[in-house]
């Protein structure tokens, strides 16, 4: 009988919406969740494109970022057609691909890094890369090499829920979705439900590296989001490039994500470790000290 379908019964009983999903392995928090449970502000997440500037720069970059006191590292899987990225990240991806970067090689490099680093690692890339690797293979491999979370900007919420949510949860990976100034409140709530780890708050509707500085209009948006009492912490990204923008971002979110500015710093560097230490020092500046005092 039609009326006895589970759907109908759930609706008529007016039961709670099915929004609570058990996290596998509940006693053990993921590295990302651990970080956010211990540190609530001034979190610095730095993005780099794997295979740039050199094919084998991955390990040195991650270890240097960790040494410099960065909290999370976002590893970009270079892509031929990165729709959400501006010229800086596009070009670094082209160099990386020309250098010969592949997903298999990247996974090998990351596996090697994990022996000497415990910093949370997030893979960022476009969904076609995941599809071609085989979704299940990709998620399993991520887990096995010690990746903690994913950012897949062109994986839509609908497809994620319908096809991939279970796979990603079973692999024990966190996933961050993006919100922008144009994202509706209902959609933000939905994204908050689906996110584990942190929400990637795009500072201004733009591609990466496009806009400089933070305007009053953006601040109104940050305040609006803060009032929503979301369950996930938020990192602010896009257009964060220096001490000034980083400290402003930290006033309105748990921390910030820097990409293009770091790629620019790495361009033409002869000493990745030194460039990285200097870059992170520049970004953190005295802001952190001032906050601690």
């Amino acid at each position, binding site marked *: 009988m039609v009326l006895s379908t589970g759907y109908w019964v759930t609706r008529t009983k007016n039961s709670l919406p099915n929004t609570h999903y058990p996290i596998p392995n509940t006693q053990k928090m993921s590295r990302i969740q651990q970080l956010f449970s211990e540190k609530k502000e001034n979190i610095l997440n730095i993005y780099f494109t794997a295979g740039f500037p050199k094919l084998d720069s991955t390990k040195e970059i991650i270890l240097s970022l960790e040494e410099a006191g960065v909290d999370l590292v976002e590893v970009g899987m270079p*892509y*031929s*057609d990165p*729709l*959400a990225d*501006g*010229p800086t990240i*596009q070009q670094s991806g*082209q160099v990386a*691909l020309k250098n010969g970067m*592949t*997903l298999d090689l990247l996974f090998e490099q990351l596996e090697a890094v994990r022996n000497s680093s415990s910093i949370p690692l997030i893979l960022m890339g*476009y*969904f*076609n*890369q*995941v*599809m*071609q*690797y085989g979704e299940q293979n990709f998620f399993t491999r991520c887990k096995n090499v010690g990746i903690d979370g994913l950012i897949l*900007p*062109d*994986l*839509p919420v*609908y*497809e994620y829920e319908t096809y991939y949510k279970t796979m990603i949860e079973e692999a024990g990976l966190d996933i961050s*979705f*993006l*919100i*922008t100034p*144009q*994202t*509706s409140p209902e*959609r933000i709530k939905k994204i908050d439900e689906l996110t584990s780890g942190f929400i990637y708050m*795009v500072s201004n*509707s*733009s*591609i990466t590296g*496009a806009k400089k500085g933070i305007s009053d209009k953006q601040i109104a948006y940050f305040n609006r989001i803060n009032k929503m009492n979301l369950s996930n912490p938020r990192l602010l990204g896009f257009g964060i490039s220096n001490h000034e923008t980083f400290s402003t971002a930290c006033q309105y979110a748990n921390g910030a994500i820097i990409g293009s500015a770091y790629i620019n710093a790495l361009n033409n560097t002869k000493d990745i470790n030194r460039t990285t230490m200097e870059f992170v020092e520049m970004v953190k500046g005295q802001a952190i000290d001032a906050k601690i005092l």
Partner: protein
Amino acid sequence: MITIDNKGYYGEFGGAFIPEMLHPNVEELRQLYLEIMDDETFKKEFQQLLRDYVGRPSPLYLAERLSAHYNASIYLKREDLNHTGAHKINNTIGQILLAQRLGKKRIIAETGAGQHGVATATVCALKGIKCIVYMGEVDIKRQAPNVARMKMLGAEVRPARSGSKTLKDATNEAIRDWINNPEDTHYIIGSVVGPHPYPDMVARFQSVISEEMLWQLLDQTGKEDPDIIIACVGGGSNAAGAYYHYLNREQVRLIAVEAAGLGVESGESAATSVLGSKGIIHGSRTLLMQTPDGQIIEPYSISAGLDYPGIGPLHAHLIKSGRAEPVSITDKEALASAYFVSQKEGIIPALETAHAFSALEKIKYNSTDVIVINLSGRGDKDLETYIKHYDKFH
């Protein structure tokens, strides 16, 4: 049955794989496009412009000398006679009216051959709306007359300098522009590609082609159905328009002609249905040419309008389900057809369309068959290429 669901899937192809930054714009379109297109005043305005401004209906012409040569009844659907010289304007008229209703003040577009760019610049001039067209640097060189036309019409042409510097890259740049301008801008995509609802919306605007074919064929042959419809496929919009009302008339064979460039196996090709595999390009799950790692391969064709590494999700579905038959045509074969048709019928076809004519050399048919070739555009823009190769073919 060929159908599309409300998430934009034709079978397993379609959807909207877009970054969150594009979500509000694409979602607004998805929610409103059918309602707007169904509105009586919209329809009236659209049809009136198609008639009085574009010059529709485009004739269906029985090409007697071609028919005699190929021993079949060959009809040409004369989209080349439309204002601006190709089918592209059917879609841009529809989308500019839609953009007005959405309150948009700025139009962006991508273009390959420049036909869609010209068609967009034209409707923007018609409506007094600012127009920016992204075009690959390579295409700017090989389609110079269309670049000049766009400028003449008041549009700004911005070169796309990334990747292969052709249609794929122009599309990337247009999408990035849309991300950066989320409020006042409408993106007029030029083919049945991109995230849902674009493939369906563009197919509906182009469906006027087959709508006219129904009564024109009835008039001229006594039957609505031809035996075969042939169209070239870049992204697939002229083909979608020519197939549309016949999609579920299984007795009508649909031939999808792709550009093989220097040859399907040469490494310099754009024959997506042969060389492609399932993946995501420009926000759509479809067939595309890519490496095992999912990096999009730069295509090649002499024809800028077919030089695209994907096909629309409708065509991916038609080909994978066996509903449409793909045919690959090389640069050389297309050029030969262009010279041949010019001198047989007094019609200089666009290089894209020349590929469709070459399919007559490849497919099997009977002498009693009624074959419609969608003559998607005229060859004025390609004269330089035609003159350059002329001596090799004569």
